[in-house]
Each structure stands twice: as C-alpha cells, then as structure tokens.
C-alpha cells in the first residue's frame, strides 16, 4: 500500500509537471468557458434566464473531453514507463504488479480531476452570476458524471497501456477507442436500429456497453425527467427503472468500466516482461 501510494504521488507529480496536463487543463477550461458563454448568449436572445442550455453544452463537452484525456493519460502511463526503463526499476522494488497499476491509476486520476476541476472552475465563474439554487443539483450531476466518465476513460487507458507494445501504439489504440465510444457506437446503433429493432435488453446493453453514453444520461437525469434530451436509451432506462434505479445502473456501469480494465491490467502486467 505504501509503495502504491508512492507510485501514485510520483505519477501525479509527473503529470502535473508535464505540459500535456497543463495544456489540457487550459484547453478544456477555454472550451468550457466558450460553451458556457455561447449558451448564455443564446438564452438572452430568447429573453430567458437560467443555466439549462449552457449546462447542456457543458454536458456534451464533459462526456467527450475528459474521457479522451483519461484515455491518453492512461495509455501513456505504463507503456511510457516501460519504454524509459522506469517500469522495470519500480518492479524491482517490494511492490506487486497490481499495486503498480493501482498507484499509477490513482495518481493519474488526481491529475485528471485537477484538470476537470480547473475547466469547470472557469465555467462556474461565469455561471455563478446566473445560477440559482435549483441549478445546483444539475450542475452537481454534471460535474460528478464528467469526473466519472473521465476516470473510466483513464481506467481503459491504463488497461490499453498494460498490453501495448509501446507508447505510440498505446496512444493510437486509445484514440481509436475514444472514436468508437464517442461516435462510432452511436452511428452503428443508429444504422442498426431500423434494421434490427432493439428490444429492452438490447437498449440496456447498448447503454451499458458505452460508458460515454452512460455518463451523458447520468448527467442529464436530474434535469429532464422524461425529457427528450435523454435520448431513446435514457428515456427507456428512466421509464423502466425510475430515476434512482437508472442512476444506480449507470453508476454501476461506469464503475465497472473503470475497475475491469484495471484488474485486467494488473494481471497482464504480472505476466508480462517489464
């Protein structure tokens, strides 16, 4: 445990110092700010007030960008350390391979959360002026699910890293995974839907198979009970399991998406030559 924490501290420090995290934090912050300002602007044009649409823009940003960051950070981790001989160095110390994976994940999760917090921090500075008390729950759900999907992306990224031949291969696979989850899955389902009508189980599986979609629905659950923003999958979940049940299911799916790749990574690393 002590050694795992040492690895975590090391990863966190390295990540915070690397330009990647700083750049990502600034970019994500700027994007959040932009989306928020545009959203608010559109509202004023309609003579409305509130944070709803601005938050909707942030949801899309939040379920797409942090998972990408997580995937890339995770993918670079073990594969990069292996390339630089650091993985072997660490592994020659009294620490199990599982603890190496756990420590790596924890440290990078800290870095990722810092990045996301910074981005949302910038957005909330702007939103603070217009937000009302009843907006707090949706905003909370947004931040929570964004952190969750980002962390799931990180888990998958670390998993990829444990198997990859090198850092560039890991990054390429991580990018591909992100495209599939962010775009490919929706497209495939949209294409399939008319041909094979997904039954209830099909719909359920489709959501649980895509952590990004799960995160998107989770973020929107508190705002739009039965609303159209949830999409067909979300509407189905809400209808079938109620808000609490749907929420639990989605959280469970995201946690599984985080934990399973890490467990697999730990076992893979134990067998692989570092």
């Amino acid at each position, binding site marked *: 445990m002590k050694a795992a924490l040492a690895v975590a501290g090391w990863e966190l420090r390295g990540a915070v110092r690397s330009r990647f995290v700083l750049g990502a934090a600034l970019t994500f912050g700027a994007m959040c700010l932009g989306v928020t300002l545009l959203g608010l602007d559109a509202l004023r044009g309609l003579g409305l007030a509130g944070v709803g649409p601005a938050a909707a823009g942030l949801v899309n940003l939040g379920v797409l960008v942090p998972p990408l960051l997580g995937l890339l950070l995770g993918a670079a981790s073990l594969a990069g350390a292996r390339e630089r001989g650091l993985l072997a160095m660490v592994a020659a110390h009294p620490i199990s391979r599982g603890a190496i994976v756990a420590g790596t994940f924890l440290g990078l999760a800290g870095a990722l959360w810092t990045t996301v917090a910074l981005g949302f921090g910038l957005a909330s500075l702007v939103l603070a002026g217009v937000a009302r008390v009843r907006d707090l729950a949706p905003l909370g759900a947004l931040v929570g699910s964004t952190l969750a999907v980002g962390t799931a992306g990180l888990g998958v990224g670390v998993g990829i890293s444990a198997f990859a031949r090198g850092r560039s291969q890991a990054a390429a696979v991580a990018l591909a995974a992100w495209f599939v989850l962010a775009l490919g899955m929706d497209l495939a389902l949209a294409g399939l839907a008319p041909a094979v009508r997904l039954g209830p189980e099909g719909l359920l599986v489709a959501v649980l198979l895509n952590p990004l979609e799960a995160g998107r629905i989770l973020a929107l659950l508190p705002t739009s009970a039965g609303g159209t923003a949830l999409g067909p999958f979300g509407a189905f979940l809400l209808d079938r399991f109620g808000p609490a049940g749907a929420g639990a299911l989605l959280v469970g799916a995201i946690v599984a998406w985080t934990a399973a790749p890490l467990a697999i990574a730990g076992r893979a690393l134990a067998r692989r*030559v570092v």
Partner: protein
Amino acid sequence: MSVIEVEGLRKSFGEVVALDGVDLEVAEGTVFGLLGPNGAGKTTTVRILTTLLHPDAGLARVAGYDVVREAEALRHVIGLAGQAAAIDPNLTGRENLEMVGRLYHLSPTEARRRAGEVLERFDLAEAADRPARTYSGGMRRRLDLGASLVGRPRVLFLDEPTTGLDPRSRLELWDVIRELVREGTTLLLTTQYLEEADRLADVIAVVDRGRVIARGTADELKARVGGEVLAVRVSDRSRVPEAAGAILGLGPGGGKVDNNTGEITIPVGGDGTRLLVEAVRRLDAEGIELADISLRRPTLDDVFLALTGHAAEEAPTPPNGTRRRRRSP
C-alpha cells in the same frame, strides 16, 4: 557463505537461447564480475536474479530467497542499477531518490534523509534540486547508482555501470563502487571490459552465448591468456600469412590472425619485451615491413580467444569508444 546461488539457469526468448544453463556462486561480501560481449546473457541473468524475469528452468537463490517463489521478500534486500539509467527526467535528483526510498517502504522522513546522504556521497548535492533531465550522462549514472543504494541493499546488482561514460567518470565511479564494497555489500556487476572486472571484481565469470565458459580471479584468467599480448600489424596485407608463419611460434603457445583487421596477436607470458624484439628481428629478416607492433594488456577479446579459440561474437569497442547498441534493455 553463498549469497547468490544459481544452478542450471535457462531462458529463451522465442528462438533465441539467452541462457543455456548458467551456474554461479557468489560469496557474501565479495564482488562478482560477469564478463561477456554483447548478447552473452548478462542482462538476462541480472533480470532473473532481481525477479524481473522468470527463468524457464533452473534454480536461483539470492540472500536465501528463491527468486521466483519469494520474489517480493527478496526485493526488500536487493538493489539494482540497470543497463540504461532508469530515472525520471521530470523529477529532480532528490525527488528521484526519495521516490525510490518510498518504494522500499521507508517513511517520508527517512526517505528524505537517505536521499540527502546519497546526494552528498555521489557528489550531486549541488544539482539535487534540478530536474534530472538537465544532468550529464555521468551525473545520471551516479544518480541511478545512488538510487540502487537508497534501500541499503544486502546484495547489489549493477548492469554495465560504466558503459558510455568518459574515462574520468569511469574512474570516479570505480572509486565509489570500491568504497561500497568495503562497507560489506555483496556486489554482482556485469561488464564488457576485462579491465573493469580486473579492477573491481574478486571473482570473474566469463559468459558467452548463455554459458559460463570460465571462472576465476582476474589473474587466473589473465594467466590463461598468457599475460601480455603482442599485437603485430604489417603494412602489406597480402603478406599477413607469411608474417604469421614467421612469428606465431614465438610465444608459449597460441596466437591468432584476425582476418578482418589483419592483426596478428600472440600471448607472450611474462617475456614480452624479449619476444617483441625477436618478432621485429624475424620480420625484418623476411623483409616484411611493420605498420605497428605493441605489447598490451589482454582485453576481453584476448581472453575469449584463449578460451574459445574464436573472437567475441560481437566485439565491444574499447572503453572510451562509442559502443554499438542493438537494442535497449
């Protein structure tokens, strides 16, 4: 008492047989040198003994622990500085060492204290708070070596500790290593340089293609080469065979012509100067013009020649030359 016991160690990577039945025994508090050319299996041996790699067959115990079954316990009492310096360039020297201390389960305070000690000892105190990426090659090596000591290991493994260093840094590092040994650490080091093994090791094992082909003290090995070596090069390459015929019989035995360089080498025992003069005389009598003639201390290549009759498969360049690298470990 033996601190390292290795019996019949085998390891293959696909088709490549890296270790083909290695036996070693290292006594407590001694320095053991594993001497061999590129690809001999030195790093593979070290990686197995430091639990990073599982052997296909054979037994290995270090400090009483089985390297496979008691790997985690063993890792508490060993230190390793690998062939390529494994330090995080984004952390400072001090942070790198503290990190290693934490990996040995030391408290933050203790890790900091030992990091300070190591920085002092390896002459890195001034650069301690600079990112390691700004360090020179020699400083990196020292930091890496220092890191392997943070845990105060009973058994230390150094894989080619001075490869790639300039002669001055090499000498400095030798001093540090000798000092460590005086403090009682058992050390296994690998090297491609007979001179390095000679300076540091109590016992040397020569490895070739995954096998130990000879073992003994540096003096014993050198005796098998026959002391110094007379190296002769003639101006006209077409007359090499003729020259060889004239002088190969000079020494106490052996001798060889390198077909690539045209160099004729002859072990001369303790009789170097007389045989050198005799060689010059004979070649002169044949009317063969000399390009170069010298007496030199035997190198790994000479030991190989004497032991195996063939040159080291992938001949290393001399210590201060740049070395071919086929692959990073």
